[in-house]
């Protein structure tokens, strides 16, 4: 019925000398939906971007109260610039 939602604050630092547009995706939980408040994720060189993202999932797909999920950030113009960080998704207890 109702979707379970976790809210995360992501802090992204572009440590490169050039502006990059990034693509954010989530991994580790099937059927999880990623929602965030910006369409394009363009971050100038040296800048820090803070974004609020929501991850939603239908609780039927959750088999345990706490699952590990991965956020994957990739620069659109350079696939070598890619980082994968883990987080926890908490379902209803």
């Amino acid at each position, binding site marked *: 019925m109702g979707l379970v939602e976790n809210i*995360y604050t*992501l802090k992204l*630092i572009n*440590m490169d000398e050039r502006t*990059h547009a990034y693509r954010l995706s989530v991994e580790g939980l099937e059927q999880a939906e990623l929602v965030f408040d910006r369409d394009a994720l363009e971050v100038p060189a040296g800048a820090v971007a803070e974004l609020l993202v929501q991850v939603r999932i239908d609780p039927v797909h959750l088999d345990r109260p706490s699952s590990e999920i991965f956020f994957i950030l990739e620069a659109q113009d350079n696939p070598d610039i890619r980082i994968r960080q883990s*987080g926890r998704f908490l379902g209803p207890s």
Partner: protein
Amino acid sequence: MNQTASTPNDREVENALYQKRKKIYPREVHGLFAPRCVLGVFVLLGLYYVIPWVSYEGHQAVLFDLPARKFHIFGLVFWPQDFFYLAMLLVIAALSLFFFTALAGRLWCGYACPQTVWTEAFLWMERKIEGDRPRQMKLDKAPMSLRKFRIKATKHAVWLAFAGWTGFTFVGFFTPIRELGVSLANLSLGPWETFWIIFYSFATYGNAGWLREQVCIYMCPYARFQSAMFDKDTLIISYDEARGEPRGSRKRSDDRAEKGLGDCIDCTLCVQVCPTGIDIRNGLQYQCIGCAACIDACNDVMDKMDYPRGLIRYTTQNRLEGKPVHVLRPRTLVYGLILLALLGGLVYAIATRVPVDLNIHP
């Protein structure tokens, strides 16, 4: 009043703020090692004063930008998050120090250490203004006069100017130096920049002009523990006692075997050129910084006497005792291999690092 009888000397030492030391006037020296030393001074000082002015892609090539919290080394940018690399670099620096010390003793002290390098520069300026060793000693013994005041004032003015430029350059490694220069010209320097420029200028002036070898003897931690890294195969500067003793002066035409004398003519030049004032003929001492000035001075004298060089030379304890020499030994091999591994690891880590960071809350 003192209840125990103390000699005037004891009282003198206790009450004086400074150790009653005689000022050391190192005599100028030429030879095999001296030019290398001078070259080292030029290269290192040159690098220090020139590098902050080098530009790379529109910004300062080497800039440890403290206000902006970013370190630039040419194309590389390091953030606070990259602190790990700095820690690795420090470990590598320490290990390479141990490695070179095990190999050849105090190479760092004699040729590369900033204290030695800046003291050499200050000594050179002093020599140019006050004259060579005998003239300096004569000037110091003379009573104050207009001439003495003028000479001393010139020397200190030159020292302070050089120290000022050193302090300015030092701060220029940490905030962009061109802006700093403009601010200085406009007398609009920020208070903290001003403070640190003055601080480092006085530190340079004090260390290189006044303290000199006292830094090596009393302040340097490396000086204290470096001898622990020596073994019998470490290259050290040594006086060949077997060859030199018994010492004594003689005429060039004398047959030393006949007179029962060794090669040492007791000219004491090795003592006069020593920046820390020791007599290497007494053996390797804690104060010796391995600058090899005594080697050059003695070789010069040996040449004049038509004796073979090397009465004072780089050698190892094993070689002096007639035992075989091992450069490649467990200590040097282990240090060397670990060093290579860490260096390789650091280069690899920097080359493959991703220029983006992502933090997730919660």
